[in-house]
């Protein structure tokens, strides 16, 4: 079966690239699963989404937190262009938990605080990517 060639890139570096059997991303319209021979798609990713890549060759699943950006699919090539992205294995769980608590506290104090709400969303995604329960 054909494989997908996947590249996950952020403006400052290339996060991961390789072959995969399936990619699951979260767009503004909901989750979308991409398998080989998918029709060309260009979608907008949500803030604080979790990207799952089922790697080829039994290497297991790659999970990354991606914040904003796009993904495009064409000719079995999937490129995920995230404004910010981080692999689950790179997440510093304790630091992010702290950040999440701080963000939630400022949301509690001021429900209009969009910045903090966004920060909380991102922290949640990063924890999920790291395999933590949130």
């Amino acid at each position, binding site marked *: 079966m054909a494989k997908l060639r996947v*590249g996950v*890139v*952020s*403006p*400052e*570096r*290339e996060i991961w*690239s390789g072959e995969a059997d399936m990619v699951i991303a979260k*767009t*503004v*319209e909901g989750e*979308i699963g991409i398998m080989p021979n998918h*029709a*060309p*798609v*260009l*979608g*907008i990713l949500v803030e604080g989404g979790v990207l799952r890549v089922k790697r080829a060759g039994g290497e297991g699943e790659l999970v990354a937190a991606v914040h904003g*950006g*796009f993904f*495009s699919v*064409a*000719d079995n090539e999937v*490129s995920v*262009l995230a*404004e910010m992205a981080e692999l689950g294995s790179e997440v510093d769980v304790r630091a992010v938990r702290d950040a999440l608590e701080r963000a939630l506290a400022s949301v509690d104090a001021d429900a209009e605080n969009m910045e903090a709400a966004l920060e909380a969303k991102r922290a949640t995604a990063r924890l999920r990517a790291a395999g933590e329960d949130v």
Partner: protein
Amino acid sequence: MGAQLRLLRRRIRSVKSTAKITRAQELIASSRIAKAQQRMAEALPYEREITRAVTGVVSNTSSIDHPLTVEKERPASAGVLIVTSDGGFCGGFNANVLREAEALRGLLEERGVRAVPFVVGSKGVGWHRFRSREMAGEWEGFSRRPAYSDAKEIAGMLIESFKAEEGIDEIHIVSTEFVSMLTQNVVVKRVLPLEVVEAEQTEETALLPYFEFEPGAGAVLDSLLPRYVESRIFTALLQSAASEEAARRRAMKAATDNANELIGVFTRQMNQARQAEITQEISEIVGGANALADAAAGKE
């Protein structure tokens, strides 16, 4: 010791310490170029992908009618983003950029377009302040290590004034392109309105797929185009950072070479002065001894 000799010794000492400083600056700049080049390389995949995505969208939505791609018939003002450095000691780096920016300004004014400068880097900001030129935006403090958030901030401001009713109608970037360690060119690029070039029928463009959009073509363009502008600006900042270090390395190398040459010249002059002094002393002693001998001979 003669006055001339002392003077030369002092100058040699001072030139030597200058040479040490410029040599250190040169080495620092060399190591920074490598880092800056690495950052450029790391940013490349994103830029390539986003350019591909934009080309893809533009080439298969037949009628693009997005505010960022529409060209005004009679542009009245144009924003010029001038990318300079924060630090000096980099030879003609900033002067070249500013000269090119002035040329662009002249060109725009010939067409009856007012140039509105947006300036990155303290050197450029200082240059404009000194001439009491008004700047629509100024950013300082990150020319050596630009982060994506910096590019985002700049792009946000540019796009906002581009979209505003009485805002600017075009956006140009004047920055330095890093070609290699030895070559950096000042380039002028138009960023907005995006030039929607009719794709030439090369093998690559002919194969561009027809995309489906999620959620819709309009919404995708709405968020894709600003990202594209951000990426272009980020690339310009990174290239400029690498070029700045390369220019600094070259300037500092020239300064070190000149200092070493000066030291050589001064050392020769000093040796000459010392030799002259010794010769004079000897001839004085010999003269004195002769005079004494003559006087003694006269008495006998």
